[in-house]
Each structure stands twice: as C-alpha cells, then as structure tokens.
C-alpha cells in the first residue's frame, strides 16, 4: 500500500491510496464516519426558555454545534457542562445568541465554529390600555456534553464528506480519498484514529481466534 497526500488543508484532506483493495478503503471510510469519537451536547437542563423556539428545537440546534475535541482526553463516561444565558435588550430590538456564548466547565472545550446562530431573542414593544411595555425574551440553560460515535447519532460524526473515487493517471490506478472535517477534530487526526481503531479491531479478532484454538 502506498499513501500520498495530495492536498492538506485545515478542513479538508485529499489522499491517494494505491495498491489497495477497495474494500479496505471502504472499511476505513466507515470507521471514520461511524466510530471515531467526538464530544457533542447530549442533554439539556433548561431553566428558562421564553424564546420563539421550542425546547426541543433549541436542543437539536445545540447538539449540532461541533465542539473542539482532544482525543487524548477521551474518557467514555465523561460529562462536560456548558452554560448558556442570554436576554433580549431592554428596548425593542433583538440579540442573536451565538455558539461562542457557550461557556464550558472544561476550558479546553469550546464551539469549533464561533458564529453559529442558536436563537434570536426579540424584545417587542406592546401597548395595552395606553401603557407601553417591553416583552423581553430569555434563555438560561445547562448543557451536558458527552463522548459518542457517529453510529449512535450524526452529531458525533467528525466528518462531513468522507468518500473516495477511482483515479487513473496513465497506468497508475489509485483511490482518491476526500475527507472533510466538521471542525471538532483535525482531519489528519480523524484518519489516524480511524486506522488505529481498525487495527485494534483486527487485534481483538486475532485474540478471540487464539482463544478458540
């Protein structure tokens, strides 16, 4: 097997694999998608939500925010708490709540993309019986982030596009792999971790067979 790095960007990596069976490339692809662990918000404790989104919608939006993950810190049952508090302005107007406003208990954890709008909080002016009031909106919640894998939910999937195609350059045939990350893990780390997970699985297989014989 021969591996050649064609393009190595921050979000996208292109590698050419030659002298390799398609089934091997496919196994690697499937491990990258479904078995490389990342952090994602999994549970919310909503203290207050007077925004225009239902609690469930807020939960889904927060879960899809990629969190910066360090695989060295992987602990299966680890829980990281993130808090989010925001109120709409005192006068009529609005504030947009962004993913960067999530504050984690572990300073290493933060949203991989700062400017994901979570919810827009709007203050509206109302006049009831000649008295003007401003109705403000507020959210206050604690989110629990957990480790998980893409097989369980796509929010834990570290890659977006992860595919390969046949490339032939004259007599040379290779598989051109495109891996695009969502920001939670560096792309090269995703590929390495996937290879390591595959190796571990094969070793476990050997162990199991040894016990049988």
């Amino acid at each position, binding site marked *: 097997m021969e591996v050649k790095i064609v393009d190595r960007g921050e979000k996208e990596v292109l590698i050419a694999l030659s002298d390799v069976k398609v089934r091997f490339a496919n196994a690697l692809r499937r491990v990258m998608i479904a078995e490389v662990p990342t952090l994602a918000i999994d549970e919310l404790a909503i203290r207050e939500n007077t925004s225009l*989104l239902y609690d*469930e919608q807020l939960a889904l939006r927060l879960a899809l925010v*990629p969190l910066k993950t360090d695989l060295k810190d992987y602990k299966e049952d680890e829980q990281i708490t993130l808090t989010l508090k925001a109120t709409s302005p005192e006068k009529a107007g609005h504030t947009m709540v962004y993913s960067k406003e999530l504050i984690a208990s572990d300073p290493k954890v933060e949203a991989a993309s*700062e400017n*994901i*709008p979570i*919810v827009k909080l*709007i203050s509206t002016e109302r006049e009831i019986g000649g008295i003007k009031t401003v109705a403000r909106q507020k959210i206050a919640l604690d989110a629990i982030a957990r480790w998980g894998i893409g097989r369980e939910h796509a929010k834990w999937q570290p890659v*977006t*596009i992860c595919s390969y195609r046949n490339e032939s350059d004259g007599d040379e045939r290779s598989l051109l792999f495109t891996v695009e990350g969502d920001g939670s893990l560096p792309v090269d780390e995703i590929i390495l971790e996937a290879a390591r997970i595959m190796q571990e699985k094969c070793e476990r297989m050997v162990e199991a067979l040894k016990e049988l014989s």
Partner: protein
Amino acid sequence: MQRVQGQRGRSLIGDRVMIPVRCYTCGRIISDVWDVYKERTKQEDPGQVLDDLDVKRYCCRRMFLAHAELIDEIAPYE
C-alpha cells in the same frame, strides 16, 4: 370546525424560523455564514456570494437559496 394538522413534520417548523445549523445532506456547518450571506445578497449575486463563502456543494447551496427566515414575522404572535 375541525382543524387539519399540517402534513409537514413539526421539526421542520423550527428550520423555517431560523437557518438550520448544518446542511441536511452532508452535515457541513452552514449557519455560521448566514449573516454574511444575508447582508451581501442585498446587493450582490447569491451565487457569487456563496462561491466567496466557500460553499461549494449544491446540497449546501440550496440550504441558503431555499431558506425563508420567519423568526421576525412570528415574533408578534408569541
């Protein structure tokens, strides 16, 4: 009068209100450039803006083109 339930799933209603966080198809984060897209398309060509924002695939591009931002419109009926 009998009320007929809408045929669309309830979860979609949330996405009508605000831009979805990720592309439905590939999962790429798209919402982080929505503000820029909205501002720039007031004057510029949407296709050109999406090229500049590095939104390459048509699955992600349709998320922008087909989105209707309704949050300000439903705000008075809270």
